[in-house]
């Protein structure tokens, strides 16, 4: 299995145990850790496709990671176009891949 989460680093200290946070991704259970962004948690789980291009529906993934490019826009708790690379992961979030410009759904 490929480990995408950095656990040891020559300068930064990742040894402190962080709280596990549970959320759902496209309806199935997923987890990250306290301090993760949504996109970093998904990246660590091996998720590559975060959204689709509006025009040609091509898959879009983790790219700029600083909230500029909109490649990571997803629907979070029913709110579309959330830039997941700069949005902190919270317990119980519902995260979905977005396939269009984004629609507010009727609960």
């Amino acid at each position, binding site marked *: 299995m*490929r480990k995408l989460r950095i656990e040891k680093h020559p300068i930064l200290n990742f040894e402190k145990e962080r709280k596990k946070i*549970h959320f759902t991704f496209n309806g*199935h*259970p997923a987890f990250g850790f306290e301090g993760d962004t949504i996109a970093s948690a998904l990246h660590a789980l*091996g998720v590559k496709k975060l959204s689709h291009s509006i025009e040609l529906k091509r898959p879009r993934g983790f790219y700029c990671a600083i909230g500029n490019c909109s490649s990571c826009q997803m629907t979070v708790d029913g709110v579309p176009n959330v830039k997941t690379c700069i949005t902190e992961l919270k*317990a*119980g979030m519902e995260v979905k891949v977005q396939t269009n410009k984004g629609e507010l759904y009727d609960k």
Partner: protein
Amino acid sequence: MKGEKNMKPKFIKKDELIVVGQRGSSFETGAIWQKFLDLYDKFGIFEQISKNELYKVRLINGKKFDVHFGMLTANKRQSPFYKMLNIPAFEYAVFEVALAKGYDEQIVEIEEWIKNDEKYEQGRIEGTRFLIEHYGVKYKEDDFDNSVIEIMMPIVEKED
């Protein structure tokens, strides 16, 4: 016909399943999942069957559906904070769905398969269509690329 490609389920019979968990709208799956885990940490499950295996039941009402997240037990008496779901004995068509190949898309294909099948129709609990997602040993919570979920479609023979 759409929904018939690569559809090779295995057929199994299951006795009554008692799923202890939490339930709510499919728009709140994250919150339901978290609520269930909080309760599980606090109360555990009395006479739990198969630890680390999770069941998510979709209770379908038209285009919307509720989800019931939980685990199996042999005992119907549990903490009153849980919600219980009793699924009577059914025959299931079981499909293996690889998360890496797209989870939602494959469930849509399975739903198409049952709609188009000549012999079977989808089973119901008290008139409500349902579908079980089984997160078992092939589901690796830290590696979606290599995770497989079992989709259990309850089937009953069509009446002439």
